[in-house]
């Protein structure tokens, strides 16, 4: 399995790792800058990168601009875009919970990606460079002028930023704002101007990296943003969130790790190594490799991460009434499309219940919930296919397996707080998908599992649309009642105590880790059941069935409904599964409209539709 390459090969792997790391670096600097100032993971950064690449393409193709002019246009265009993002998406959300701007950046990235796709078509395009065609031989490979340009811009911009932050007045204002926004304001700093500057610089850098990477690979496409954000975030976490020089070193390390991972185990293990590195760094040095000892511990996120708000009081009859209406619905209308969409919504609602528990009630914002779904789906499918267990047994067993495995996997992240939990869980979710891809003897890898038996209870087939609908609804109601009962018990109070102030909770003799573990076990059970039912509904699953986009969707549902709010989670699921179906008539525009709708909802209800509990 493991192969040990020769000495010259090691040299080549090292150079290749540095070349790729160089590219990640450009992305990570922008992300680090924004995080440093506004404590925000900017999920729209990858989209700005895509926009930059396309501005460059348009300039080269239509105006025939030489490279320096193209770069200037991209910097200007994306700088303005950055200002617009700050203005439209984030400034109106000041003072609301931190989580709201995070969601806003996700919405903005949908909108930007979709606009690029509509304007430039989804086809990939070549982006040819007019740079001279000389290459320097290093090892057995070569590097060209673009490699050097990318390195120069990466290191140069990091140095410039470092100087700017250290030696200029505006730079001081930026750092003051980063340290304490309110104090900075009292000292007369125009915090809005600082934010605007930071977003403009970061977006300009992001756009420039899109252009350079596009030129480098002679390839741009509207779908390239998500992967870019993902790798940029990982790189900057390794270097220390918000640490600009650290971001560059983190990127190079990430590039090297991936390259050595390929060297030792093969290409399909590449990302596995990237995410393992992320988890190891987070566990051992949660502030990044380059955090100095003097640095203050990560800001206690307690109380500030999740907006305190009063949940909307629903009339007592409303939830039972709606549940009853949902139960009798199939008897009243003959609309399989509606029932299927609602079945999907019930399944996502189970996932959202699970996430609203860990993210809302316990304050652990998880971005890896698709991993739990996948574990549940594979567990139930394998139990039914390999051991011939009846489906009625394999589904609850899958819930238990997911509870156990999920808690075990997330255990290392329990000591982390705030954004670090999100990133760690994002990494863990990716690792689950990559293990499924590579553990072929169990999962059949990319071929996937087919012929998964449909839902049934002994002597009672449940495969018809209506029966599936009722089954999913029944499970959802049971899980919802169970969770609501738990939240009212002492356990629920302890969970909220851990969320609101884990130091105070510890002072009262509560062990936060154990309670977080319990929450992930309960949440893992719901998510596992949801995954298991999905597997039997689809009859076929592979490693691509539950992507990280599913995790982001689940988080969006939970935030939209109001963190910790059970009814809100179900409402969020119904809305976010239902809206894209409702917008179907608009064909290619539907994701764009969905993104705009999301932004509007966050703009007007940053605490969630039904409020946090």
């Amino acid at each position, binding site marked *: 399995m493991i192969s040990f390459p020769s000495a010259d090969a090691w040299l080549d792997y090292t150079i290749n790792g540095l070349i790729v790391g160089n590219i990640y670096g450009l992305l990570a600097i922008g992300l680090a800058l924004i995080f440093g100032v506004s404590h925000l993971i900017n999920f729209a950064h990858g989209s700005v990168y895509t926009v930059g690449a396309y501005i460059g393409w348009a300039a080269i193709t239509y105006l025939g601009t030489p490279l320096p002019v193209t770069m200037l246009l991209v910097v200007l265009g994306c700088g303005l875009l950055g200002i617009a993002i700050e203005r439209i998406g984030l400034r109106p959300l000041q003072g609301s919970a931190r989580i709201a701007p995070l969601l806003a950046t996700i919405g903005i990235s949908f909108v930007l990606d979709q606009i690029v796709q509509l304007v430039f078509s989804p086809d990939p395009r070549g982006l040819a460079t007019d740079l001279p065609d000389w290459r320097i031989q290093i090892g057995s490979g070569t590097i060209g002028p673009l490699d050097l340009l990318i390195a120069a811009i990466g290191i140069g911009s990091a140095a410039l930023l470092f100087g700017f932050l250290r030696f200029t007045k505006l730079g001081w204002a930026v750092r003051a704002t980063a340290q304490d926004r309110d104090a900075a304001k009292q000292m007369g700093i125009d915090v809005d101007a600082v934010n605007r500057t930071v977003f403009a610089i970061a977006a300009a850098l992001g756009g420039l990296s899109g252009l350079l990477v596009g030129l480098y690979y002679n390839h741009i496409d509207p779908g390239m943003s998500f992967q870019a954000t993902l790798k940029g975030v990982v790189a900057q976490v390794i270097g220390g969130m918000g640490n600009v020089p650290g971001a560059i070193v983190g990127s190079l390390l990430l590039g090297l790790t991936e390259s050595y991972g390929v060297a030792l185990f093969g290409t399909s293990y590449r990302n596995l190594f990237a995410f393992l590195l992320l988890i190891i760094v987070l566990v051992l040095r949660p502030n990044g490799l380059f955090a100095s000892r003097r640095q203050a511990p990560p800001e206690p996120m307690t109380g500030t991460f999740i907006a305190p708000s009063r949940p909307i009081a629903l009339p007592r009859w409303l939830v039972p009434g709606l549940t009853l209406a949902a139960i009798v619905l199939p008897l009243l209308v003959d609309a399989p499309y509606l029932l299927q969409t609602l079945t999907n919504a019930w399944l996502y609602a189970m996932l959202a219940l699970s996430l609203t528990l860990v993210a809302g009630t316990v304050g652990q914002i998880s971005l890896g919930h698709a991993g739990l779904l996948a574990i549940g789906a594979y567990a139930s499918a394998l139990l039914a296919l390999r051991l011939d267990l009846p489906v009625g047994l394999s589904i609850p067993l899958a819930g238990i397996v997911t509870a156990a495995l999920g808690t075990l996997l997330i255990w290392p992240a329990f000591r982390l707080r705030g954004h670090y939990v999100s990133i760690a869980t994002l990494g863990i979710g990716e690792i689950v998908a990559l293990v499924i891809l590579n553990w072929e003897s169990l999962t059949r890898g*990319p071929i996937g599992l087919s012929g998964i038996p449909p839902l049934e209870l002994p002597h009672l087939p449940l495969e018809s649309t209506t029966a599936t609908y009722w089954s999913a609804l029944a499970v959802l109601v049971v899980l919802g009642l169970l969770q609501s009962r738990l939240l009212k018990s002492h356990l629920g109070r302890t969970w909220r105590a851990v969320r609101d102030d884990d130091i105070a909770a510890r002072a009262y003799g509560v062990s936060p880790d154990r309670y977080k573990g319990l929450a992930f076990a309960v949440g893992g059970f719901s998510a596992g059941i949801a995954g298991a039912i999905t597997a039997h509904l689809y009859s076929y699953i592979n490693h691509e069935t539950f992507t990280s986009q599913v995790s982001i969707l689940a988080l969006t549902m939970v935030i939209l409904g109001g963190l910790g709010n059970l009814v809100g989670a179900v409402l969020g699921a119904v809305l976010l599964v239902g809206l894209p179906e409702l917008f179907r008539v608009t064909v290619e525009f539907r994701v764009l*409209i969905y993104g705009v709708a999301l932004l509007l909802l966050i703009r007007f209800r940053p605490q969630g539709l039904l409020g946090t509990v």
Partner: protein
Amino acid sequence: MPIDRRPSFLSRRGFLAIAVVVAGCSGLVPSFADAQTAHASGEPILLGVSGPLTGQNAQYGAQWKAGFDLALDEIDGAGGIKGRPLQYDFEDSQSDPRQSVAIAQKFVADKRIVVEVGDFSSPASMAASPIYQRAGLVQFGFTNSHPDFTKGGDYMWSNSVSQADEQPLLAEYAVKDLGLKRLAVLYLNTDWGRTSKDVFVKTTQDLGATVVATEGYQPDEKDYRSTLVRVREAKPDAIILISYYSDGALIAQQVRTTGIKLPIVAVSSVYSPKFLELGGDAVNGVYTTSNFFPGDPRPEVRNFVEHYQAKYGKEPDAFAARAYDTIILLAQVIRDSGTDRKAIRDGLAKVKDVPSVVFGKVEFDPQTRRVTGAKQTDLVVKDGQFAVWDGTKPVVSN
């Protein structure tokens, strides 16, 4: 935390205004079913298409549409199906199984839809299969090479080129014709790439060649340098690409910039003008195959290529050809068997000798519900163009 009371530049009203404008623009787009200008009159016959128009695979959905529209123009120009125009309802699934199952219910309940086409990825297609099977609506998966796709039931049919069919031909081209003996295989790590790789490796070994390395890469990968070092270390005499055109072009470029001079042989999925555009000089000398070729004397190919160029001003690619073929085939089946859903399924088993760009003539094996015998032309990229391979063997340098 003090609350900022200053009015913000973009007020709630302003924000709403933007939303209204965006929503308003979307109203300008006509739906596909209306967009066809029908020469044939009468009640249209509707095909349901489930595929990606947005999201990661949107580019392939766009190729589908190009192929579909060309075929529909042709069918309607010739008077439609017994005077009725053929049209399609393309629902965007983003290749997401959650959406493809909902679309399946929508199509199944819509009595106007006589047959369903798609989806693109296996997870999205096969998740919807139980719904089509139960309702008795043919699910025609024309890109679904997954060996288990048609095992979903007797309403699952596919004219996708079977990898059990295509890979041995590619292996013969590489081993017998080009004389390559030590192969390094790079494959797209999806169900398609993996199935293809397994068949290819087996056949090349039967033909007496050695596979010295196999490397599976993820669809969103952009950098292959380290993979290529691994390949080089295995000392192959050629690189085999089981790729689509966009990743294939990326790999070919990086093969050249990392100083590897080995010949490259690629599967027919790279046959696209985009492969030449994205690959530039690096794809010169790449050996590949195609189910059709503009110089092909077969009348169905000439017809397809000429009309495609006239309508879109560019060369067709493999995906567009398969999409075009599918509509021509389904139109013929509906013409022969009528618009009843079950009759169409029975008709697929009986259909014979429908002209096809990919297969020459189409006929299904009623047991596997697949078509065999794809045509294959051996090609090589010369001066930035696909050309018929002239029999010259590559000079193997190391």
